[in-house]
C-alpha cells in the first residue's frame, strides 16, 4: 500500500514538450513511474522521452488508459488544463505550476471536488511513493523506500527533510508536497486520514509553514483521529510579520498563523516538534526507538 499513487498509476503529463515537462518526464520514468502519455495541443503524433504526445487529455486517456495527470502548463492556462483532465475522467491531478491566481484555484478546487477528482498543489512538488511511482518533481536522489510518511506545505524544505531521513538509513512510504499557495487542492487535514489508514506508514513527518491555519487544523485532526506518532517542523519562527518571505503565500498577518501558535497546537496534539530542519531526522529515530521498546 501507499498513499495516492501505486504501481497501477499511469501518468499523463500536461505540458510535456516544455522544458520542465520534458525533464521531469525523464525523472519520473527513471524513478520507475509509468508515464504513458503527454499532452501538448498541436504536437500530437510526436514523442518526448519515448512517451507519445496527444492533442487532448481525452485522446491520451482513450489510447493509454492514463489515470493520473501531472500539470506543467503555464499559470494562465492551468485552469483549463485541470478542467480538461477532470472532464477526461482523471481522478488524481498534481499541479506543479506556480503563480496560479487563487480565484482560478477556487473554481478548479470545487469543480474537481464535485466530480470526485483530487488535486495536489498547485505550486507543489507532488507525490512520490519510492519503489512504486512518482507524480511530480521531488528529486529522485532524496527518495528511498521505507516506512516514514511525509506531508509538507513546502518544496525544497521537504527535500531537505526527506534527504535527512534518508541519510539516517530510513526511507519513505509516501511523500506528499501540498504546495504553499493560499488555496490548495489537498490540505494536511485531507491527507492525514490516508496516512492513518496506510499499513506501510509507521510514523508521519509533517512540515508546515507560517501563514493560514492549516497546521492548527491538522493538530485538531491529529488530536482526535490519528494514532501514529508524528514529528513536525514549522518554518518561519523568525520571520517578520506582514512580509511575504519568498514566492509562496507564507505571510503572517493580523497575529494569526504564527509559528508559535502552530507549534503549540501540534505539541498539544502529541506531536514532537523540532526547532530546525536538521532536528527532524533525529526526532524520527528517537520516536521510532521509543516505540520499539514498547
Amino acid at each position, binding site marked *: 500500500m501507499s498513499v495516492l499513487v501505486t504501481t497501477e498509476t499511469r501518468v499523463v503529463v500536461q505540458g510535456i514538450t516544455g522544458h520542465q515537462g520534458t525533464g521531469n518526464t525523464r525523472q519520473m520514468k527513471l524513478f520507475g513511474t509509468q508515464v504513458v502519455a503527454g499532452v501538448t495541443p498541436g504536437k500530437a503524433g510526436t514523442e518526448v522521452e519515448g512517451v507519445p504526445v496527444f492533442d487532448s487529455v481525452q485522446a491520451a486517456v482513450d489510447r493509454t488508459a492514463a489515470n493520473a495527470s501531472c500539470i506543467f502548463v503555464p499559470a494562465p492556462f492551468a485552469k483549463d488544463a485541470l478542467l480538461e483532465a477532470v472532464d477526461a475522467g482523471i481522478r488524481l491531478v498534481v499541479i506543479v505550476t506556480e503563480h496560479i491566481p487563487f480565484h482560478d484555484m477556487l473554481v478548479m478546487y470545487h469543480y474537481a471536488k464535485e466530480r470526485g477528482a483530487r488535486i495536489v498543489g498547485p505550486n507543489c512538488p507532488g507525490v512520490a511513493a519510492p519503489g512504486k511511482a512518482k507524480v511530480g518533481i521531488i528529486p529522485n536522489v532524496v527518495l528511498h523506500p521505507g516506512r516514514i510518511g511525509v506531508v509538507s506545505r513546502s*518544496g*525544497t524544505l521537504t*527535500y531537505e527533510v526527506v534527504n535527512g531521513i534518508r541519510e539516517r538509513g530510513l526511507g519513505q512510504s509516501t511523500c506528499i508536497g501540498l504546495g504553499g499557495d493560499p*488555496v490548495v487542492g489537498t490540505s494536511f487535514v485531507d491527507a492525514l486520514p490516508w496516512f492513518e489508514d496506510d499499513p506501510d506508514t509507521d510514523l508521519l513527518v509533517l512540515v508546515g*509553514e507560517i501563514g493560514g491555519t492549516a497546521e492548527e487544523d491538522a493538530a485538531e485532526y491529529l488530536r482526535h483521529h490519528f494514532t501514529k506518532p508524528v514529528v513536525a517542523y514549522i518554518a518561519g519562527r523568525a*520571520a517578520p510579520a506582514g*512580509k511575504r518571505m*519568498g514566492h509562496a503565500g507564507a505571510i503572517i498577518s493580523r497575529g494569526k498563523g504564527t509559528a508559535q501558535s502552530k507549534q503549540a497546537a501540534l505539541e498539544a496534539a502529541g506531536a514532537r516538534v523540532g526547532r530546525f530542519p536538521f532536528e527532524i531526522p533525529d526526532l524520527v529515530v528517537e520516536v521510532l526507538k521509543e516505540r520499539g521498546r514498547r
Partner: protein
Amino acid sequence: MVKLAEWRGKEIFRKYGVPLPTGRVARSPSEAEQWVRDGTVPLPCVIKAQVLAGGRGKGGAVRFAQTPEEVRTAAAAILALDFKGEKVREILLEGKLAIAKELYVAIALDRSGRTPILLTSPQGGVEIESVDDAAIVRQPVHPFPGLTGYEKRRAAQSLGLSGAAARSLSTLLDALWKAFNAEDAELIEVNPLALVGESLVALDAKVIIEDDATFRHPEYSEILDDRTPLEEIAREKGIAFVQLDGNIGVIANGAGLTMATLDVLMEFGGRPGIFLDLGGTDDAAKVTEAFLLMAQAKPRAVFLNIFGGVTRCDTVANGLVQAMAEIPAAQRFPLVARIRGNNEVEGIEILRRAGIVALSSLKESAQSVVAAAQRDAPAGGPA
C-alpha cells in the same frame, strides 16, 4: 499583493456601482482649495491622506473643514505628513454626510474552507481586529452559484437593516462580489459603510489585488506599493527579494527553505536581513543576477543555501562563479555556500575549481556565516 490606496479602491467601487460620497483627489493645498471653491466637493468636507497604513484617524491624517481656507490649511498639514514612514502624495476630499450608522462589510478568502467569505458586522468604523468575534457574521460563499439572495438577506439581518436599506445593501453586495471576482481581489473591505437616510455609502475602501493575477490585470503591476528600490528591480527580474533590518544576506530557493534558513541563522545569533528566493529556476544567468542584486544591498556576509530540485546545483554553481567574476571589488562579501540535491557533486566541483568551498551541514554553514558577519563588522561602527 498589491494594496490599493483608498482613492484607487474607490475608482474600482465606482466602476461596479458602489455608492460613494462626492469627492476628488488633490495633490496640493491650492488644488484642494479649488475643488471646494468650484463646488466639485461640497462643504463641509473631510480630507484624508492617501496612505496604505491604517489608523489614519488617530494619526492626524484625517481632518475636517468648513471653509475653503480651512481646506487649504488642513490639506497643507496632511500633505506635509510622513505617515508611519509613508510620504503623503495625495489627499482625498469628500463631502461630509449625515451618518445614521457605521457598519462593516468585507469579502475575503477563507483558505481553510477554500471559498470566498462574506464578513458583516454592525460595529463599523473601528478596526475589525478589535471587534468581538460574536459581533461578526461570517458566511462562506460558494464560487459557483456565487452570492445568493438568502446570504444577502442574512447579511442585512446581521447589520440590522430592513426595507429600503436592506435593498440598498443587496445592490451594494452584488457590486462588491462582482468587483472581488472580476478584479482578482484578495480583499475588499468597506469600513465604515455608512447608513445615510435609507441608503448605504462606502466611506472607505480597502482593496488588495492578488499578484499572481497581474497577467490579466496589467494596470495593477504599475502601481507602486511599499517596495524598496532593490525590491522593485528584483520584482522586474522575477526574483522574490525582501529587505529587512539585518546584515546577513540569504540566497535560497523556495519559501520554506528560505524561512528555515532564517530560523537557523537567528538561533546562532545572526541578523539575516536580505532575502532572495530564486524559486524554481534553471537559468544560471538568473542566479548571477541574484548575486549582483545581493551585492548592491551591501551585506556583511552571504549564505547561499540551495536544495536542488528544479533548480539544479550545477546551474547555481555556474551562476555563482560568473557573479563572483562580475561583482566589483568594493561590493565583495564573505560567502558561505551550501548546495545539496540534484547534481550536487557537479555543483560542488564547479565551486571548488573557482576556489569556493561548499559545506554540507546546515548547522555548520549557519554558524560559519554568522561568524563571518561578526568578524567583518567594524568595531563600534554601524551594524
